[in-house]
């Protein structure tokens, strides 16, 4: 103990000398620095300050995701103040239901899985505990050009133990890139290529433009003989693709990608030609045949097979997109509904099997194709690690149900859509027969009448009536309509009973509809042997359209509702357009509505 003070004194003296010398060196160094700084153009300094601010703001929305008790992980980005955040499927695949997310504020948050898109390698999670999370603004990634500055933020090599993310900047090297599937699930189509360093751990993290707007989600790099580090070629899933899937991801489901049901090839003259087509596909029903030349798809000209796959890859199963083709010099424009890539349940099996995306046993790439998705974990494997218990807060946001990733969010959105509709008038009291009268655009008077038991239509030419008991798929009257009367009856049934009592009703996601700028919320409702899809306009909560499907791989009977008006405190359509395939269409101008209360039950 007695030696201690002496040692301290010596140290103090030594430290003094060191500090003096250091100070001399520092002041010598700082003098010219400050002088040089003063000479820098103020515009340059302002630009630098602006860039620092952009990076700082973007960093705040970035997540460091830790899965499996810190053994693996990646990055993510918050896209709304209530905590919805994007990352890669292959990052969350390690984690399961619950994960921990560190943010630049130094805090660690719990997060819960919401929905998965395994083919697109996207996962939606919800970060919990706040309703004022810093969120990134999503850009229009179709406006991104080669040579644009960009920066990636994330957690490469899982460095950020203090949760402060790493920033790497670069330029956009390519846009609309197509990357072949690694194995059978992960496919990067229409993606952005950048030379900003993307390393293992950057997976799921944001790619920003120079203004700090979100343009994509980093997820893949071209790695080869130089080991698993950045070689200046990284790929980001475009945010525009993710916007198409966002509604579906919020449904708490395993979301599937789309196929046209037709295969394309390039011919000698660099035209894209239909090489094979499924007769069950909507494209076939709309008239597309073997040998037809594809002109444009979803509004984009298609000059190569890759370009075709690029367009296809950004849409979810079930969407309708415009398609233009040419046969013998004649152009045909149609709207086609896209099929799912995977069979019912197949995607779940693949995800469950997991080996297709096992990063430790990556599938062999085709010659000349850049390989690998990237695993983002430390060497220790997941197999023996016991998952930690689910945190209490996560339990509140998770409901397990077969066929769902997290049923909690499906029920949440189903109820949200229904509440927005009934906020403008509740139909529950109108349990008796509905009568709607008016005329068609041709001036013919019509009368529609439907109840729980039967449905009828009366036109000047006669009357058609069906009963609604037992199997409905055999009663598709009037002929050629695809089941107009059943569809109208289901419309009434849905409005009167609501999603709880109608049958099995779930939230599907969002879809476009002709004449609407924004995507519509879709509820899928099963009753007996038929299925209905109800489309709601998010702007006013109104039921804008519905489809009644009596048989798989056949055209639905569609009803489009418009010219809404108030009837006895409820909002009802003044115009109903009915369609089936290309040949049946009928319009009803509704003038009189008559609703009986639940009279039958009192009898």
């Amino acid at each position, binding site marked *: 103990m007695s030696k201690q003070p002496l040692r301290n004194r010596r140290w103090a003296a030594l430290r003094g000398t060191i500090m003096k010398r250091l100070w001399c060196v520092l002041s010598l160094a700082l003098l010219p620095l400050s002088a040089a700084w003063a000479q820098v153009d103020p515009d340059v300094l302002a630009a*630098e300050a602006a860039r620092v601010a952009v990076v700082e703001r973007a960093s705040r929305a970035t997540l460091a995701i830790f899965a499996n008790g810190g053994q693996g992980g990646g990055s993510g980005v918050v896209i709304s103040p209530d905590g919805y955040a994007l990352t890669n499927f292959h990052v969350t695949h390690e984690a399961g239901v619950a994960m921990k997310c560190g943010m630049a504020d130094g805090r660690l948050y719990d997060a819960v899985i919401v929905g998965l898109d395994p083919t697109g390698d996207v996962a939606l999670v919800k970060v919990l505990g706040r309703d004022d999370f810093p969120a990134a603004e999503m850009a229009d990634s179709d406006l991104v050009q080669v*040579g644009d500055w960009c920066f990636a933020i994330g957690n490469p090599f899982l460095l950020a133990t203090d949760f402060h993310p790493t920033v790497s900047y670069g330029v956009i090297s390519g846009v609309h890139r197509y990357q072949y599937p690694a194995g059978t699930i992960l496919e990067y189509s229409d993606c952005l290529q950048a030379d900003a360093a993307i390393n293992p751990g950057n997976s799921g993290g944001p790619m920003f433009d120079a203004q700090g707007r979100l343009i994509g989600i980093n997820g893949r790099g071209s790695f080869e003989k130089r080991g698993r580090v950045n070689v200046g070629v990284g790929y980001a899933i475009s945010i525009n693709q993710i916007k198409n899937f966002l509604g579906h991801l919020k449904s708490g489901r395993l979301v599937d990608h789309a196929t046209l049901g037709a295969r394309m090839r390039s011919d000698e003259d660099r035209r894209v030609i239909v090489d094979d087509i499924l007769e069950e596909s909507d494209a076939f029903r709309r008239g597309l045949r073997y040998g037809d030349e594809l002109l444009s798809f979803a509004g984009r000209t298609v000059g190569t097979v890759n370009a075709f796959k690029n367009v296809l890859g950004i849409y979810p199963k079930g969407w309708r997109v415009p398609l233009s083709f040419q046969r013998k010099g004649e152009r045909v424009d149609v709207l086609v509904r896209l099929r799912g890539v995977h069979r019912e349940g197949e995607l779940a099996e693949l995800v469950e099997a997991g080996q297709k995306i096992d990063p430790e046993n990556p599938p062999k790439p085709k*010659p000349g194709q850049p390989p690998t998705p990237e695993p983002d974990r430390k060497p220790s494997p997941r197999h023996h690690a016991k998952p930690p218990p689910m945190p209490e807060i996560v339990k509140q946001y998770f409901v397990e149900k077969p066929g769902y990733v997290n049923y909690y969010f499906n029920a949440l959105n189903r109820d949200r859509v229904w509440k927005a509709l009934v906020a403008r008038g509740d139909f529950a009291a109108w349990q008796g027969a509905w009568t709607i009268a008016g005329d068609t655009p041709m001036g013919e008077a019509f009368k529609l009448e439907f109840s729980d038991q039967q449905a009828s239509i009366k036109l000047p030419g006669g009357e058609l009536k069906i009963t609604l008991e037992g199997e409905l798929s055999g009663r598709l009257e009037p002929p050629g309509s695809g089941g107009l009367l059943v569809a109208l009856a289901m419309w009434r049934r849905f409005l009167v009973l609501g999603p709880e009592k109608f049958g099995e009703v779930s939230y599907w996601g969002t879809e476009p509809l002709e004449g609407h700028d924004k995507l519509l919320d879709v509820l899928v409702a099963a009753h007996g042997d038929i299925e209905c899809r109800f489309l709601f306009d998010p702007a006013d909560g109104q039921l804008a359209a519905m489809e009644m499907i009596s048989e798989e791989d056949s055209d639905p009977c569609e009803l489009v509702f418009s010219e809404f008006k108030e009837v006895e405190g409820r909002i009802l359509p003044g115009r109903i357009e009915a369609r089936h395939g290309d040949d049946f269409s009928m319009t009803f101008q509704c003038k009189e509505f008559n609703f009986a209360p639940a009279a039958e039950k009192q009898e």
Partner: protein
Amino acid sequence: MIHTSPASRRTRPRRGRAFAALALVVAALGGSLVPQVMAVDSPTQAIEANQPKMVKIYGAGGVRGLESYQSGFLVSEQGHILTAWSYVLDTDYITAVLSDGRKFEAKLLNADPRLELAVLKIEAEDLAFFDLAASVPADSGSRVWAYSNLFGVAAGDEPASVQHGIIAVKTRLDARRGTFETPYHGPVYVLDAMTNNPGAAGGALTNQNGELLGMLGKELRNAQNNIWLNYAIPIDELRGSVQQILEGKFRPTEEQAQVKPQDAFDLAQLGLVLVPDVLELTPPYVEEVRDASAAETAGIRPDDLVVFVGDHLVHSCKGLREELAHIERDGKLRIVLLRGQELVEVEVNGQAQGEATQP
């Protein structure tokens, strides 16, 4: 910010200029990086203007570790393409795909293995091209753009990949001899960006204004420390050779002289045995050198690859036989060999009679 360090390191030894160097660093930090974030328009326009000049090249390869594709760029309106000389071109079927997706069969006009360059020709006209005469030099610290089809990412009409970087230093590659094994030992731009990836060889390097600076070299790994070098060969080094090829002074290999001399060179007389000629274009590797032959006297060894006979490039056993058959055996003949990664020049004496061990 690390981009400026090589430049500042160069100025540091001059102590008197330390302050100025520091000022330069600060100016470079602000000057070269910051305004680019704001001025996003000009680089994208320059890139758009250059994309039609880029060519995707497909040829031999496709086995593991040997990609069957590389990059190139047009250097004339009539379809001359400058690219890297590599095994990809060791085939009669070289395909060149232009940025608009048009696909052409390309002819190997000629190559200069010492500069690792080759010139291809496609039958097309009115093409956008880089004018080699208008290429410019660049200094260390310059911001550059690299265009290539690295990893074969782009196909058909998809544009080449573009990367950004800074010239870390302009130096001579032979300073690294023994570590980076390559026949080229001239000046290079060393880049701070990961440009020299599989398939990138033959790509273009430009400055910020889109002016051509150099051609991206092949992948080059330091055998000792496993470091990969990213570099481009300045156009100044390539221009003369390309010009000669374009002017036909490098005689195209397929245009053989019509008249064969009575007393020409041949392999047996030289004492050379080549590998079995089993392919369309079997590379002319030496299998065996006869004892006491002219070839042995000249210093040719088994496993050497014959690259040049006189001034003429040969790239097959057939080509070598044909070439020798056109040269009169009355004097000395210069032969360039590739031994390992080194180019070796030897002279064989046509008068020498080394047929003692003729089998």
